[in-house]
């Protein structure tokens, strides 16, 4: 009975494939950013259109309060583009660093990239953030 141990060439090929996968994921994330930015631009346009129309129509106090509350929620939710873009950009940088390491293992690049900046977006949802006055 023979056992097939991975050879150095197998490991090198696997590293090269993994690096190619990293590059493909980076490209997917770039497309995701484009889609998010396009959607956010359209949502913002609709939001401003609604907000400008809303001010021209007089309503009773209860309706105005409900609309103001809905607009406040929309203002919070529409901040998603900034957070999503930062998070996606950070993931791309991490993938680029990983890709560089894998290519270095494969002998394609001599120096691996280092990711210096920590995670910039720790939020896991769109609930309001903290306030600290010094």
């Amino acid at each position, binding site marked *: 009975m023979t056992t097939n141990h991975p050879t150095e060439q197998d490991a090198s090929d696997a590293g090269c494939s993994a690096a190619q996968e990293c590059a493909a994921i980076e490209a997917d994330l770039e497309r995701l950013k484009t889609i998010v930015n396009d959607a*956010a*631009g359209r949502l*913002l346009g609709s939001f*401003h259109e609604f*907000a400008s129309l809303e001010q021209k129509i007089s309503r009773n106090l209860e309706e105005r309060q409900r609309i103001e509350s809905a*607009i*406040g929620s929309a*203002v*919070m*939710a*529409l*901040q*998603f*583009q*900034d*957070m999503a*873009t*930062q998070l996606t950009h950070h993931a791309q940088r991490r993938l680029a660093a990983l890709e560089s390491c894998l290519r270095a293992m494969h002998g394609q690049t001599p120096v691996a990239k280092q990711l210096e900046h*920590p995670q*910039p*977006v*720790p*939020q896991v949802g*769109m*609930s*309001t*953030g*903290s*306030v*600290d*006055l*010094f």
Partner: protein
Amino acid sequence: MQSILAVDDSASMRQMVAFTLKGAGYNVIEAADGQEALDKARGETVDLVLTDQNMPRMDGITLVQNLRSMAAYAATPILILTTESSAELKAKGKAAGATGWLVKPFDPSKLLDVVRKVIR
């Protein structure tokens, strides 16, 4: 009318900040990064600066340091509005002279409460 300098490299964030502040009667001047904000602050004095932290060319804390070195901005309230929430960065912001640290996303009514509290 009191003026607020709103600094963020995200156009959508600037829009949401400006929408909120203008709706409460403030004049809003926008800048896309710290360097542009510094140039605008040299041109005219504002009553409050609300800045992001992570931006190209010049980040928020560096902007605070630069503004605090200017006599016209020695006592102007400066708020940092950012996704970052680490204690280390907050301490750096405080040491640079920031008035407060707000973590995104902001609630419009809470932002206005803070602005009314610190603006002179």
